[in-house]
């Protein structure tokens, strides 16, 4: 618990900066609807986009508030917050090993698995907070800019799905950080893997032959358009994301427990 609290406290500035940027992004997204979302020309342009770009943008009609916000904000929300989670997750344990602080820490009566769980918990809380901040800003901005017809009640569920995706990729990055005791390398590998997974998922969405790539990929289970339409997150999607998270968290704990700290 102490590692969790300390890690979260140490990340407060980073979380604040990310939250500020995401809030500005949300305000920009909502405020631009009247200019771009209701533009006939852009509507026609969007309909003519290639399939892979439509897959990236989420699949709701651009001209509606929901469709516009899904394209502009929600379709990228999981990627943005996953990048945060990957950066934090990947550097969490690698930084401790790289700077030899892990020796100070583990010279105290603290179990290795509790260090891993503490880092994971801090990463997860950060990811959830960022998603909540963004969605809260979107909902507030809707009333500030007088936009109606949005399914605002479903947006927190989108945030939950995005947070689950971010935490899943963060768990993968945390596992990477147990393998690579070099902070900058671990951060590069972690974020590289997340960006790679995102684009691999896009390929999986547009190609039947490559569909399996989405089936083993957290981003394949983040379906913002479907949540906005149905008002709920599919249990199967949530189960995969939670399972993916637990699997990589278990791998991180297992490897960190057995590895030599040299």
């Amino acid at each position: 618990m102490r590692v969790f609290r300390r890690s979260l406290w140490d990340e407060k500035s980073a979380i604040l900066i990310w939250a500020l940027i995401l809030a500005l992004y949300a305000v920009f997204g909502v405020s631009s609807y009247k200019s771009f979302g209701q533009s006939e020309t852009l509507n026609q342009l969007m309909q003519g986009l290639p399939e892979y770009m439509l897959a990236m943008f989420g699949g709701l009609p651009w001209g509606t508030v929901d469709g516009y916000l899904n394209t502009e904000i929600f379709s990228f929300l999981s990627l943005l917050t996953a990048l945060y989670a990957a950066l934090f997750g990947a550097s969490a344990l690698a930084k401790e090993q790289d700077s030899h602080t892990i020796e100070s820490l583990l010279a105290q009566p603290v179990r290795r698995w509790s260090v891993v769980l503490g880092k994971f918990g801090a990463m997860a809380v950060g990811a959830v907070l960022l998603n909540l901040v963004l969605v809260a800003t979107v909902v507030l901005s809707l009333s500030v800019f007088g936009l109606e017809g949005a399914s605002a009640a479903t947006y927190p569920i989108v945030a939950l799905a995005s947070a689950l995706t971010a935490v899943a990729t963060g768990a993968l990055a945390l596992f990477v950080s147990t393998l690579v005791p070099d902070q900058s390398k671990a951060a590069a590998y972690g974020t590289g893997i997340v960006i790679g997974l995102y684009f691999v998922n896009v390929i999986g969405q547009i190609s039947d032959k490559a569909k399996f790539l989405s089936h083993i990929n957290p981003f394949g289970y983040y379906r913002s358009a479907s949540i906005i339409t149905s008002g709920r997150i599919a249990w199967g999607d949530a189960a995969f994301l939670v399972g993916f998270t637990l699997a990589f968290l278990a791998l991180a704990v297992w490897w960190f427990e057995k590895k030599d700290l040299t």
Partner: protein
Amino acid sequence: MPAIVVESLTKFYGRTRGVEELSLEVREGEVFGFLGPNGSGKTTAIRILLDFIRPTRGRATVLGLDAQRDSMEVRRRVGYLPGEPGLYDHMTGEEYLAYMASFRSGGARGGRGATGGAGSPNGHDRRAVAARRADLSRRLDIDLGRRIKTLSRGMKQKVAIIQAFMHGADLLVLDEPTSGLDPLMQHVFYGILEEERAAGRTVFMSSHVLSEVERVCDRVAIIRGGRIALLEVVEDLKRKRIKKVHATFAGPIEAGSLSLPGVRDLTVKPSGSGAVAEFRVEGGAVPAVVRALGSLPLADMVIENPSLEDIFFEFFGPEAAAEVARAHAIEGREGRGQG
């Protein structure tokens, strides 16, 4: 009960040897020196005691507890000073020490167990730990309010020393404790160590500085190539050690006047109206040699303690001495690199 028992401890990193068939016993209440050149396996052995590294073969017990199976309890009762003071740069010294202390508050076992000194502050006693921290910071002359990233190497070492000592642990495991400290602070540190010994605590410290080990340790083990090459009571080691003598005489002398039992490699050369003699003498023969020198027209004299290289040369031959010299040269470069 011995404070540390190491039995046939072996650790290989792939094909690279860390330690091999290492066995030793550290008695309760003694200050034990673990001496050897860089890469000899000192740090590997220490890290196995703290369960940072898992041995390939063999086992270690610390305060009667299995170093691996009972690692939590071991670490609760051990104060550890790492060879590299890995501190959190963004914290102040005070924050760092409070963070480290927080892991022992509440969970620490009360007594000193089988070892330890009277009146020692235990981990759960926050006030005692705080008082000890304040006392150590005053004696080591460090401002704990400063951010660690602004501290020099020596200052960081002081923070790490406070961290190891402030809990009043039953056993202190110190990896190169005076590394980075200036001579004045080394002196202060030796004083603190003396107090720990007087309080009955056990200290296991690694070093590559022979004079340091001689000064503070009761027994010393020399490790070479991952194995214990020598284990001696320090006083015995001193007696056995060869010292170098350089004597200048105001008048001519007969070489035979210094050909005493225990004197080796004697050379006498004329120098102006006098003479210069150089020789090596066994530790036990020093009083007889000083008496003999007193009967001669002695103008000046230097008795030099042998370096670690000399000791290795004496015990293990020129190849081992070269190994130590290489390790020192590497360390010197690294030290300059660190500024």
